[in-house]
Each structure stands twice: as structure tokens, then as C-alpha cells.
């Protein structure tokens, strides 16, 4: 009997170390079907005998080709074991779950991406989806902040985005090393340099809770409409199916109504931000 808690096996096709803490896993469901996700959704990832945790999907549906990618930070027991896995090994997958970004609402808009740290992992899914359908959107700006150069994710893609004429990419680090020649400072220092028309801009920001406080101040301070600011909220989505209670933010289950929310939807929700 199939149940909502049974993971499906997925085979690891490749593993790309990204930083000291993050690896990118390319996976294929063992039965061969597509994951069928939307940018911004997550899956529950299992190692049988160790446990299960929610991980955001890092690849875009436009590039799925029957596979999907998860950028996994080694942060605990489960992710520690996932990091020891090798190509050909299997992980358990449930999902995709949650509400992703409503891209149909973003058509014709200028898109401002502002991911911080590991937030680039889910943001990459929606960035590449937009870039693969570039004609439907206006200006595309990506502002990316990391703590230091060695923690920058997806360096190859950052280079590609940098080289594109139709993307404005600005990267900053809090703590530069000797070789760093780029911007220094927290992500909010980039906002004044970006050329965007706030009134026609959709902002997508994904990062740690402390970052939201300051990034939201910048975005709202530009006059970007509250309903045009989109975030993804990290919570402990233990079951992914709206039962276990762990991801509840007041009356909202992040795994059902989110994890993607507009600022307008959550600004009055105590404890959301």
C-alpha cells in the first residue's frame, strides 16, 4: 500500500562539491518519472535508518530533463550522511511539496533577485526558469551576498550570469579574502547600485531570518509594492503534508500555504519574519 509517508527511491547521478559545507546532488527518481516541481517547492529527503528532512529544489523545471538537483549543506546527522553518499547510491524522496513562486504573475515585470547565502540554492531554481523564458520578463537583476568568497555557491553559473547582457549581477561578501576584488559588505549595500524601476519590479529574496529584516527595509524603502515582494520561509517541515505542526506560523502551515509567501500575505503574521 502506498501512503503519504513512503519515500520513493531516487538515484544519485552526480555529486558536485560546491564549498566546504555544500554539495550539489543531481538525482533521478528510480521509476524514471519527472519530479514535476515548481520553482520554490521543496522535497522531503530520506536516508533510511537515519531520517528525513525538507530540502529546497535547486534546479529549474525548464532544465529538468528527468532529473532534479538539491544543494545540501552539511548541518546535522542526516545531511552529514547524505554528504557521504556516492554516485549510484539512493536517497528517498517525497514531494514536491508546498507552494512555489507564481511566475505567471511576474510576466512583463522587472525581476530583482536578492538571495543571501544558501538562499541561492532555491533562488537558482526560479532564476534559471526566468532566464530560460527570458522574453517574458523585463530587466533581470541578481544581487547575491555571501559571508566570504569561499562560501559563494554556483560559481560557474554566477560567471554565466555575469557574462549575459540581459542580466545585471552584483555579488558581495561580508569578509573578503586577499584575492577578492568585488563588492564588500552585506547584501543591502548592493541595492543602491542596482538599476531597477521599483514600481514595475517583482523582488524575490531568500535568505536567513536576520537578512529579511534588512532586505525588506531596502525593498519597501524603494516603493516596491508589498504584494510584489516574495520570500521563502525556512521552517521545520517535518511531514510536508500539513499534519505534524512543526512548520506552523500562527495559522499558516509553511509546507502548505508556503514556503513561498508575498510580503503582503505575511506582514501582519506575528513571528513570520
Amino acid at each position, binding site marked *: *500500500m*502506498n*501512503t*503519504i*509517508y*513512503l*519515500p520513493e*527511491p531516487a538515484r544519485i547521478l552526480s555529486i558536485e562539491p560546491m564549498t566546504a559545507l555544500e554539495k550539489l546532488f543531481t538525482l533521478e527518481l*528510480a521509476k524514471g518519472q519527472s519530479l514535476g516541481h515548481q520553482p520554490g517547492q521543496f522535497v522531503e529527503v530520506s*536516508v*533510511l*535508518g*537515519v*531520517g*528525513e*528532512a525538507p530540502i529546497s529544489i535547486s534546479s529549474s523545471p525548464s532544465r529538468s530533463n528527468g532529473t532534479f538537483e538539491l544543494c545540501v*549543506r552539511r*548541518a*546535522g546527522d542526516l*545531511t552529514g550522511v547524505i554528504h557521504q553518499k556516492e554516485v549510484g547510491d*539512493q536517497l*528517498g524522496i517525497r514531494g514536491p511539496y508546498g507552494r512555489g513562486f507564481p511566475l505567471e504573475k511576474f510576466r512583463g515585470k522587472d525581476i530583482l533577485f536578492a538571495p543571501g547565502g544558501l538562499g541561492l540554492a532555491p533562488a537558482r531554481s526560479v532564476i534559471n526558469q526566468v532566464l530560460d523564458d527570458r522574453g517574458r520578463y523585463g530587466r533581470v537583476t541578481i544581487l547575491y551576498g555571501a559571508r566570504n568568497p569561499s562560501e559563494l555557491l554556483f560559481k560557474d553559473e554566477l560567471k554565466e550570469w555575469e557574462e549575459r547582457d540581459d542580466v545585471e549581477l552584483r555579488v558581495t561578501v561580508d569578509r573578503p579574502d586577499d584575492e577578492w576584488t568585488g563588492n564588500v559588505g552585506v547584501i543591502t549595500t548592493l541595492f543602491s547600485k542596482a538599476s531597477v524601476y521599483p514600481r514595475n519590479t517583482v523582488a524575490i529574496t531568500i535568505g*536567513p*531570518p536576520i537578512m529579511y529584516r534588512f532586505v525588506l527595509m531596502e525593498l519597501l524603502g524603494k516603493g516596491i509594492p508589498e504584494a510584489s515582494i516574495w520570500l521563502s520561509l*525556512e*521552517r*521545520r517541515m*517535518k*511531514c510536508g*503534508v*500539513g*499534519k*505534524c*505542526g*512543526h512548520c*506552523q*506560523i*500562527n*495559522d499558516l502551515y509553511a509546507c*502548505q500555504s508556503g514556503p513561498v509567501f508575498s510580503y503582503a500575505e505575511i506582514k501582519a503574521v*506575528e*513571528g513570520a519574519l
Partner: protein
Amino acid sequence: MSLKIIPKDAMAAFVGSLLGAYRVIGPLQKEAKFVFGPLESPDELRLDYDTSILPPKKYVLPQHETLFEFDASSFETKAVIDDQPTVILGVHTCDLHAMQLLDAVFQKTHLDQHYMARRENTILVGIECLDPCDDHSFCKSMGTLTPPTGGYDLHLTDMGDSFAVDVETEKGAWLIVHHAQARDAGDDDYARINAVMSEKWPRFPYKLDFDIGELPALMSVSQKSPLWQQLGDICLACGSCTNVCPTCYCFDVSDKVDLSLTKGHRERHWDSCQLDEFALVAGGHNFRPSRAARQRHRFFRKGKYQTDAYGLLGCVGCGRCARACLVDITPVKTFNELYRQRTGGPRN
């Protein structure tokens, strides 16, 4: 619905017959208190119990339950579904209401096959409370002193030398036809049950100072009440309140591996939003770090969120959390204090 009569001296035969066909759960005495447990013989059944330490919830949502067994080496998984035919006898009306909420939760959007298999194979036999269990119960204020429509299969009312049996469903009718020596209620029985109901009603006090219909609205304007910090200051974060609650269903999931180190099972077990780590994520951020925030979350679930989401009560007035609390945090005092803060005093 039809009304049947089972004489008390025929009850043992009824329960004995059930025991031959079902797992039968009922209120049993455990030292000075009562618990729901499996009956071995009809004379263990204590339909006169006041309240049980844990609600009968544990027979549809057990403290620990295996979701599936696995072999990690071959990635084989096998769901474990418990569909043992079960009769739960003597469920108080508060707990029947609570079960209705659980039914709604585990059916919504993603149907939970584990819960539903148990639930669909469980026959609920309620019993009418004729006296308050103790000072902590506040069922009358919550509107749970009468059973929920469609929320039981049979419902018993003690009429002295017999039980009146309200037959609500076909499953209930099946039990009566196949296991009980029952007769149809006559005019005298209706007069009797009418008298029993009329006499019991005044024995139950109203405990809330306002109408239950106002509770969700009261909660929505109480987000910033100083009361939450006061509760947080005394709360021990022990989780007793949620462990005994008939409407709590939050759970955690963990894997257990046997000595082979490859075979094992994944199980879910009750969790509590009152525990420090409940909203902790891998990066170390805790989204509900203070006891005040966690108590507020609990009372908002009871007083507002569940009603908003499912149209059903999140608290059924059973009083178990109040009995269990080591520092005397109670829903009655909490809700009444919020009402006092908004209005300046109780309604007379």
C-alpha cells in the same frame, strides 16, 4: 437515529459478545484513576469513570506508531497499516468532539492512511456524562456536553437499571443487532431519558465568562496581551498539557534500526509545541524560542486556528491540561483573563 434499551443486567453479555469479535477498548480503573485500555473481561469496564488520564485518542493516533518498515540496503519499504476492528466503549462527549477534529485534520488535502485505517475500523460508543468529572471540566461552556452530530456510532445514557442507546450509524446498528439483547425504546423510556437529561443539565456549571462563539474573535485581538509573558514566566515547558490533550496531534518522526543495521522502521511519535526544540531548524534558528510564544501558540491553536481551518473546536473543555499542569495554567483562567483584559470584567 433510533433509540434502543439495553437492561443493565444484559450489558455484560453485550460486552462479552463484542470481545469475541473485536478488540474492545474502554475505561478501566488504574489505581485511583482511570485509563482507556483493552478489556479482557466485561467486568473490567468502568462506564462510571470520571475522566481518563489520556484521552481515547491514543487508539487512533498512538504515542508511537510504525509508518513503514524498510531495508536500507535494497531500499525496500513496506507501509504498516493497523486496521484491527476495534470498539471503543464509554467515550465522553468532549472526546467525541475531539475525535471529529482529528478526523478532519487527517483527511484534509493529504489523506493520512494510517490514521484513517484505524478510524474506519473503529466503532465509537459514547456515553452521556450525568455529572461533571471535577472542577476543571468546562464542557458546557465549550458546547461539548452534547455529542457531535455524526461523531459517534452508538451513544449510551445511564437510566438507572438500563442504558438508553442512541443508534447513530449503520456500524452502530450492526453492533446492536449482532451483539446486544436490546429492545426498542417505548414511551416510558422516552419520558425517562427526558427526565435524566433535564436533571443533569443544571448540574454542569458554565465556566467561561463569555459565549464560546466569541472565542476566535477574542483570540484575534489578544495577540499582544501581557498574559502570554506571564504564562511564559511560570510555564515549565514540560509538555504535559499537550500530552494529555484530546485535540493535540503534532508529531515527530524518527528511524529505528535493528541489529542488522540495515533493516528497521520509521515511526512517528507524539511531539509537543511546548518543548524548546519544536520549531528549531538545522541552522540553529529557533522560530519559537520563548515559553511565552509557545504558550500563546498553544492557546491560539485551541481557541482560533483550528476553528478557522476546520470549523471545529480546538479545545473541547475536558480539563485534562488543567489537571496535568504543574503550575496551574488552565484554559478557563486564560480565556477568562483575556476576556477581562478586553472588556474590563466578566459578563454577569
